[in-house]
């Protein structure tokens, strides 16, 4: 990314920037729990902010940290709005649609859908900060130092958030396993 030369951001420069960082931002939003139905809108929000702020951006700072911070802010706003509307982010038409698709899909597809739903449930149980650390570390494959740099927090904070996030994840998976065992016992292994 070449630094924009003037306070005015030319569209061509912005387009190059967009193409360079779109996947990173989109994936970050997805991992931060934006439902698929809202992902495009959220990505648009992020890049509108980027467009507005980019001419003032200090290019000595890591760009991914800045973009991720914007994604976090957008995700946080949307999460808060969803709470105000008494809406759970995972309870949407798209999730239901996916569940219905899973019913008709083959066994592998169904299993993948179930596991994704489990993952989403576990991630939804985390705070946004914990979720950010967990997904960057466990799913994006970033190192602890990289996560700290992206989030702009000290490494011990990352460590602490990751530990708590893992506990939440494990509790969520354990609840699922308990339910499975109970269901197996109830149906006599007929599932």
């Amino acid at each position, binding site marked *: 990314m070449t630094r924009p030369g003037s306070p*005015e*951001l*030319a*569209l*061509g*420069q*912005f*387009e190059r920037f*967009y*193409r360079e960082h*779109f*996947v990173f931002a*989109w*994936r970050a939003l*997805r*991992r931060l729990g934006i439902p698929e139905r809202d*992902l*495009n*809108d959220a*990505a*648009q*929000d992020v*890049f*509108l*902010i980027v*467009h*507005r702020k980019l001419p003032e951006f200090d290019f000595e700072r890591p760009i991914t940290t800045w973009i991720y911070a914007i994604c976090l*802010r*957008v995700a946080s*706003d*949307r999460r*808060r*709005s969803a709470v105000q509307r008494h809406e759970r982010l995972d309870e949407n038409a798209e999730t239901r649609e996916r569940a219905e698709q899973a019913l008709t899909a083959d066994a592998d597809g169904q299993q*993948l859908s179930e*596991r*994704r739903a*489990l*993952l989403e449930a*576990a991630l939804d149980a985390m705070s946004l900060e914990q979720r950010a650390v967990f*997904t960057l*570390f*466990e*799913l994006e*494959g970033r*190192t*602890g*130092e990289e996560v*700290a740099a992206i989030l702009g927090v000290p*490494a011990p904070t*990352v*460590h602490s958030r*990751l530990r708590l996030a*893992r506990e939440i*994840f*494990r509790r969520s*998976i354990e609840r699922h*396993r308990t339910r499975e065992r109970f269901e197996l016992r109830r149906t006599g292994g007929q599932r």
Partner: protein
Amino acid sequence: MNHLKPWLDETSDADEFERSILRAGLGVDPTQSTQEQIWSSLVSALPVAPLVGLAAASPAIGAKSAAVGVGKAGTVLLAVAKGFVVGLAVYGATAGMSELAHRPSSSSVPTVAVPRVTHPGRATATGAERSTANLAPVIEDARAKTPTTLQSTTSTPTRQPLKREPELPSVASFADPEQPSRQTSLLDAETHALRRAHDELRSGMLADARATLEASQRRFAAPELLQEREALMIELLYRSGRMTEAAQRAQVFLSRFPDSPHAQQVRLFAGR
């Protein structure tokens, strides 16, 4: 942190089931078409330099104002003044885009009016609609003074957007023995055409916008709002993906009208 192994690592302390749950969350990248779709919507929603007040600074209009100042034609003054006001309306939506970009976020402002990528079953106004709403009284005023007789040159039953001849107000329909009134009507008609082209452009109806601008070019051989039309045409070319052409035309515009109030915006399209 170095001692922590990611759970997807086979040698970590996660069990196989936990790893399988995590693996299910991989591979969530967007498709290329998603990226293009969002870019397209983004360009429509991007702020561009406000062109409000352009008519006042427009050389053509300025010259006209001077002439009017020394002449007796008070109605021409009215016409020019109206041109200014309606010029605001034509480009008001562009100014609206700036507001839009300075909103905190769509979620914190429930009545967001950004053109969106996909909204099945969701009603939101476009930036142009919102801007139009803000400027409604001005527009309505202009419309109220515009004769309602429209000349339609479209007769084909099936719509051919690229060949469509837009229904612009007929100049003939404004024919009036009084020259100042005729000038007023001409300006009304021209403004109406540009307003329509602007709305079509903001709504993503690029073929329609092009047809409207071309029709305007044919109908108004000596336009009052030449710079405005050129600025819209340049933007249209850019949004249609004809970047080189847009850049070339923008260069011509900037060399011809270096002090134009639209120069700042036009530079955005020439800046590749």
